[in-house]
């Protein structure tokens, strides 16, 4: 057997394992200054404000589930970005007393296929204006 010498560690040279809670994930990396070591199965939590730049998110990870209800308020929508295709009128739309400016009456060569009392259109042939008064 070959002669073997192994160095023994002095207590001051080695780290003891810490029993303290791991520090939160922050925004500034640090080597730390403690004299004890983390256990390998320690768990960090994300600290308040730790997610502080959009670059931390991969594309598309903020999906519909992640968004809180009513999170998209008026201020969050870029002007003119709610385009016609995004709007689905599924109930009477209340104009709240405001004008519909540059409003054009529906243009149609014939009466609409689905009559509803109150529906209006302008005939493209004679330019006359029609309103439905009886639907059935």
């Amino acid at each position, binding site marked *: 057997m070959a002669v073997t010498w*192994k*160095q*023994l*560690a002095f207590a001051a040279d*080695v*780290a003891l394992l810490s029993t*303290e809670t791991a*520090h939160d*994930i*922050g*925004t*500034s*990396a*640090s*080597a*730390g200054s*403690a*004299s*004890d*070591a*983390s256990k390998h199965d320690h768990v960090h939590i*994300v600290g308040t404000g730790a997610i502080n730049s959009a*670059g*931390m*998110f*991969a594309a598309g*990870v*903020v999906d*519909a*589930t*992640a968004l*809180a209800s009513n*999170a998209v*308020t008026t*201020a*969050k*929508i*870029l002007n003119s*970005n*709610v*385009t016609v*295709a*995004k*709007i*689905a009128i599924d*109930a009477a739309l*209340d104009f709240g007393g405001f*004008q*519909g*400016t*540059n409003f*054009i*009456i*529906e243009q149609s060569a014939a009466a609409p296929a689905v009559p*509803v*009392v*109150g*529906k*209006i259109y302008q005939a493209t042939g004679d330019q006359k204006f029609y*309103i439905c008064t009886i639907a059935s």
Partner: protein
Amino acid sequence: MATWKEVAFYTDVAVLSTQLAHDVGTVASAGVAEDASKHDHVHILGGGSISLANKLASGVVDAAALGSDAVTTIKINTGAVTSGKIGIAAALNFNGYQAKNFIVHQATIGAPPTAVVGKWFQDSSTKKFYVCTAL
């Protein structure tokens, strides 16, 4: 009673590292270093480290988290803006486009809507059409 304690061989124990902690990534790893982290080390989130939608709990992205003007057209699902979501707070410019399948406000001459010049309604009983011309 006599007590015997094992003394660690130097090569079997870790020394404390002075290197920056690695960024939080997308793949967990035991690491290959031979030194240990100090207990007060701090990790930061690496670029793209939040790489799956299911990393975010339901509802965590609330109004405060969303930046102003963050919701652009491409972010809004087609048909997602339903009537209840629309709050007309100023004149709505139709930009010369038609309002198709538009139904005139239904009311009665006995209980008309709040009068505004230009406002119109159809009497739901007589079917007559009224427009406000003066207040």
